[in-house]
Every structure is written in C-alpha cells, then in structure tokens.
C-alpha cells in the first residue's frame, strides 16, 4: 500500500500519477505496488515536481508499520527519533498564517 500527497504540483505530474494510482482527493494518490515500482514512481515525482512538494508513505515492516519520504519545501520535516520517524513542524514564516 502506498499513498502520495502532492501540493502545488504541475498538472502533468498529477495526470501522470493518476496513470498508476487512484486520486481519492485532490492531490492524494493511493495504490498497491512493489518496492521497485514504488521507487520508480517516486523518482518520476522528483523529476516532475517543479516548485511544488510531495510526500509518499508506504506500508513497511518498521516499528510504526509504515515509512515515508518527502520532496520539496514544506513546513513538516521528518525526524528520526531512535529509529522511529516522527514529523517536525516548523513555525510559519508568515506570522498571520494559521498555525497548521
């Protein structure tokens, strides 16, 4: 099982992703593929993402049961805490922006 979420992605990347995965909400793609195919899809996301950003999670035999990777600038950043990956959330650069 894998999920990709894209933000501010060019339309042709979104179209490309829909060739392999189901777009269940705007920018949210779900599917089931092997590691090899998953890495290939992710490589294409990296090549086509432009100024947007993307995150992918997939079922993995880790402690949390999944793993994830991100591309592009986003306020959320993965941090590794003793082997468990958590998400760090940087404060907004714009003070008027909502806190999430």
């Amino acid at each position, binding site marked *: 099982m894998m999920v990709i979420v894209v933000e501010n992605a060019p339309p*042709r990347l979104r179209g490309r992703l829909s060739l392999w995965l189901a777009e269940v909400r705007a920018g949210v793609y779900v599917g089931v593929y092997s590691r090899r*195919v998953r890495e290939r899809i992710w490589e294409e996301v990296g090549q086509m993402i*432009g100024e947007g950003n993307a995150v992918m999670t997939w079922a993995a035999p880790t402690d949390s049961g999944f793993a994830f990777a991100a591309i592009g600038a986003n306020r959320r950043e993965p941090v590794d805490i003793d082997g468990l990956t958590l998400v760090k959330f940087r404060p907004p650069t714009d003070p008027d922006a909502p806190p999430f």
Partner: protein
Amino acid sequence: MAEAPYVPLRPIPLKERSAILFLEYGQLDVLDGAFVLVDQNGTRMQIPVGGLACLMLEPGTRVSHAAVVLCARVGCLLVWVGEAGVRLYAAGQPGGARADLLLFQARNALDEGARLNVVREMFRRRFGEEPPERRSVDQLRGMEGARVRATYQLLAQRHGVTWKARRYDQEDWTGGDLPNRCLSAANACLYGLCEAAILAAGYAPAIGFLHRGKPQSFVYDVADLYKFDTVVPAAFQVAARILKGKGGQEPPERQVRIACRDLFRRTGLLERVIPDIAAILAAGGLAPPEDAPEAADPAIPPEEGSGDDGHRG
C-alpha cells in the same frame, strides 16, 4: 521556472497490475496526462491504465488517438468487446513484439513432436496427472473434452446448479440458460486477461497448440490452464446465488465479473500467466532460436525496459 525535464513513460510488469476493467458509454481521452473517461454529462473518471492489464471497451465508448497512444506507452491492452463482453472484435496491440519468442512459439507449433510435448504439458498442468503414453494431439483433445464435460458436471453439482451442457449461441445471448450465460461472461474476462498476458510478453495469440485456426487459438490454450480453477467456479457460484434469489439487482454479467476479479487477485493469476507460458513452451523440448549470424544490432539501441519483454513502452 526552468522547463521541467521530459520524463518518459514506461510500463510496469504485468504481475503487479490489477486485472481488468470494463468500460461503457463515454469518451476516452487524455487530460493533463491522465487517462479519463468523460461521460455525457461531462463527468470525468480517471482510470489508472498503467496499473491495469487490460481495458475492455464495450459498446458506447469512443477512444481518442491520444488515449490509444497513452495505453500503448503504459502497456495496457485495449480490447473492443460486444455487450457483456461476449464477443471480441479487436485488440489494440499486434502480437509478436519479440521476434525471438514468436519464432520459438512458431517452431514449437510446427514441429509435431514438440507440439505434442507442449500439449502433454498442458494436460499435465490442467489435470494434475501424467497423460497416457502414445496418444496423438487429437486423441488427447478427445480425452480433454470428456474430462471437461465431467468437470462442468462436478462443479455445477458442488455449487448447486442444474447443468445440462455447455451451450451458447453468439447470436442469441439472452436465449442461453443462466449458468451458461454466467460462464460466457466469466470466460470473456479470462480470455481478455490471457490475451493481454500473451501480447505483453511478446507471443502471438493465433499460434495455438491444442486449439488451431482461430485468431485467438493460443489464448484459448492458455485460458484453459486456469479455467477450472478460476472462472468456472466463480460463474457457478454467481449462478447459484441468483437462482436462489440472493443475487441482488445487478445484472448477472456484472456480478460474474466482480467474482472473477476477486478470484484473479486471490489466486495471483497475473503473476503466473507469463512464467507459465514460458514453461509450457519450454516443455516442447526445443532450444530457443539463436540470433542469425548476419543479424545486426538495432541502429538505435533500445532503452532498458521496466515492464515485460513485449511491452513497447
């Protein structure tokens, strides 16, 4: 922003895909690189063609050039079928994308000894026992027919369906009895899938071993390997449910397709088809053809494919 790089589209292996999707009524097109079915109201449905083995297009569909190109690139077979998928009109990829595999298949079919070996291997795989010695292909075919009739009877009994004989009339679809109609619909699913696998791997659907002389002879050969483990039980199960009045409102063909799809997934059919084809051809006992000494390498070397051997990508 710099011009984004061109990222080529490459097919993924057949074994990782979902099986089959039937589409009707709508215009198949490409929007922003996505494969969509647009219906009369302008509703768009994105179809993950790259993750499908084949798309069955029923009456009422129109396909744009761009959509066909995209399907070819991602290695999804387009199959044009009649209503309920009972007739097959055309398939969107010519067979024999790999000359070496095609020649190997043809050599096995032309050599009577090799052909008999292949037919015996198919017999072995289907019935789980050694075929009797010193029988010709025609004799084996006769034995197969008798066994198939008995298997129909047995499976029908097991699922509680009254079964007379396999009988269907292509001209009169609704004339057949319910188990036969379910069976026809289920077979159509299996044939589409087997044809997709044969074409994806680069073989020719017309060069059969037990079946001969039809455009899909090899498809029938390959489908017969799986028929009694997959679609026949699925069809009888659905027929029994409907005859008991527990079938729901959906048309029988649709229920059969859903049952088949589940069964294909559960039995891992797509992972098996291409290796099984290679195995039954290898049972012929002939060596695969070698490159002719004068053969030249292609002027433009092919990129390394990521899908199956015959995908054009």
